[in-house]
């Protein structure tokens, strides 16, 4: 199956995510998240779910504010598609870090401590919370942590957080119909015929049914 790859990655995920877990100094500060129930093995698949419907959300107002600011720095409104928070990405982040599953429990300390770091760094540099900074100030911090291979060693953990947070934001944003329009996903509609790519496109790429 096409998505088996994804599933295997999830099953093998423990190994792959180890670098993200290498946060002992940070995780010690995180209070243990009480076990709550997931949706079980037989949820209603045709129902419309909102974050908070199945398990309680846990971000504080301060965390929410920072999470929203960072989401919107990562994916701002650019005139072609809306900002991340306007399609529910912050609600998704809250749902994700509050979820009772192994992957999400691994991400929780990474995200919470990362958000705390963003504020601490903003206060240190500009004496304001991250959400209160202007765009150039926000970028000054993000530029230092946006690419792990280039981050200075003192920013290594923050850069690992940023990489994870960007992935969560990107996945949550581009899995919404609003962002599909921008990215060019135009499926999920019933068709009477499926004809494949237009001949002109195949010709341009030097491909086609008669290619041997």
């Amino acid at each position, binding site marked *: 199956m096409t998505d088996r790859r994804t599933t295997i990655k999830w099953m093998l995920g423990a190994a792959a995510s180890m670098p993200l877990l290498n946060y002992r100094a940070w995780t010690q500060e995180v209070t243990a998240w009480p076990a709550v129930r997931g949706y079980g093995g037989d949820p209603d698949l045709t129902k419309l779910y909102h974050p908070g*419907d199945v398990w309680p959300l846990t971000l504080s107002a301060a965390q929410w504010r920072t999470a929203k600011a960072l989401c919107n720095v*990562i994916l701002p409104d650019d005139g072609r598609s809306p900002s991340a928070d306007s399609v529910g990405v912050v609600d998704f982040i809250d749902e994700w870090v509050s979820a009772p599953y192994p992957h999400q429990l691994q991400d929780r300390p990474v995200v919470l401590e990362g958000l705390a770091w963003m504020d601490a760094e903003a206060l240190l540099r500009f004496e304001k919370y991250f959400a209160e900074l202007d765009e150039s100030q926000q970028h000054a911090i993000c530029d230092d942590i946006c690419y792990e291979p280039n981050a200075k060693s003192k920013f290594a953990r923050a850069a690992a957080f940023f990489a994870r947070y960007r992935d969560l934001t990107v996945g949550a944003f581009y899995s919404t119909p609003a962002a599909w329009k921008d990215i060019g996903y135009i499926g999920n509609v019933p068709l*009477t015929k499926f004809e494949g790519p237009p001949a002109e496109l195949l010709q341009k790429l*030097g491909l086609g049914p008669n290619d041997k």
Partner: protein
Amino acid sequence: MSIPSRAVGKNYDVIVVGSGAAGGQTAYTLSMEGVKVLMLEAGRKYVPEQETPMFQTPDQAPLRGASTPEKAFGFYDATVEGGWSVPGEPYVQSTSDPHGRFAWWRSRMLGGRTNHWGRISLRNGPYDFKPHTRDGLGFDWPISYADMEPYYDKVERLIGVYGTSEGLENTPNSAPGCLLPPPAPLVSDYLVQQRARRLGIPIVAGHRAVLTQQLDFKRSPALLHPGNLKAQKIIAAHMQQRAACIWATDCGRGCSIRANYQSTTVHLPPAVATGNLDIVCDAMVSQVVLGRNGLAKGVKYVDKISGAEHQASARVVVLAASACETARILLNSKSTLFPNGLANSSGKVGRYIMDTVGSSLSGQIPLLESLPPQNEDGASGHAFYAPWWGYQDQKNGKLGFARGYHIEFGGGRRMPGAGTLHGLERFTGGSYGTKLKEDARRYYGSFVGFDGRGEMIPNENSYCEIDPQMKDKWGIPVLRFHWKWSEHETRQAAHMQKTFADIVQAMGGRVMGKVVSDGAEAIAPGGFIIHEVGGAIMGADRRTSVTNEWCQTWDVKNLFLTDGAVFASNADKNPTLTIMALAWRSADHIADRMRRKEL
């Protein structure tokens, strides 16, 4: 389809345990032939027409539909109460060594795993039934491709499989009129085809159980059920009720319009319509009951709703509970006559569990960047595949592993989900902001993933047995697994990695992640491909096999095993189509012997 009440009637000819590909086909064939059948399913009733999330989008699901242990293939996957772990129904590993573990996928629902499977429907070829004769490894089946061919034709006609006949080595053609036309390929499919062919790898139409057009309800019924007018009428009506594919929504969600094969939409409705099939769900079979005459009398099962234990009786018992569950039921059916488990005089019950060799690699392909948006949902993947091309190299001892694999691959603008565009920084240098949005437009749809699916040779170290201590929540002793790949499998997995990297390179692309050259690391763990077969293999010799060529146990003549348990080898071809063809053949035999009063 109406499921009769959970009360079991009387005077059944045959009990069928399980309702998936094997149980569904067995019950279909028998009930169409006028045999009275009771089907017992361990999971709940499931109604695809009402329960399938056809057009739901990820933002309507918890966690954007991401995989969790409770929904391992994502929230919208059709599986109910299933996965590699089922609450209250544990199994045991014999070792903590990760390479010695077997992960057992189950789903507890009517139709079993057919509701979510990939629908890839490949025939075994002539070599695949006689592997020992060809290379001295593993076991031959007591049947040949010629014995199976008419049943492959029938199953394809009944369930609807798209594909083409290409006349390639050990990759059989179908009889004219059996296959539906394949779906149009995507741009990425054409690119893989062009570049892989330059490496000598054949790329041809895939075979999947998806209706690319309506079934031939005028001609097929008479070919499926010659001389049986009632059966012809029923199946003609059901073929007309099944819609053709609407080129949207992932088949793994199931299909409410019955456009792909799942037992619940294809086998069970016409079988119920005969009036000859009763289905009882939430009925967890624990053992086969043996009579004093040495014949199976029926089965014991737990009603999962009330917790009460019941017994059902019939002239014939068919186990089709999935390979390992079937072995488990046999091993748990102990008696003075069979102290080591029923039908186990050979000691082979539970032995020779096989999965499929799996390994994956993906690439980012600059040629596919920034293409004009098109709807690429198609038939949800696998317009093309690569059948194994190395038979001659293997014959000449060139490859270092004995058996082949095929390649499944896919790219294109698939529905984005929670994991879409993760890890993009390796191409973008860590972009964020408006630049990230530009990068997302550029890279979305430019990835192609490759999955190898290869043959595992049965070995003495891969088996299941009953754990001496642990029981499940119903009080039924559970399985303990032992697992070991041989070098034939690990070398094959390393070969897959190299081949996929070569194809990505030939496409002008960049490999995502690392090409793993150590086969033991490249291979997916046992059970991950969910193609487990064996555990009660068929053979020509009762001392070394559990059943004969009719799936009939050597020891108990009215006990049949029609699922993957009887596979004597596990070719690279996905097992489901062969399970159905074997089950049909076995059910024909059962019906025939019953008519002759021999059963």
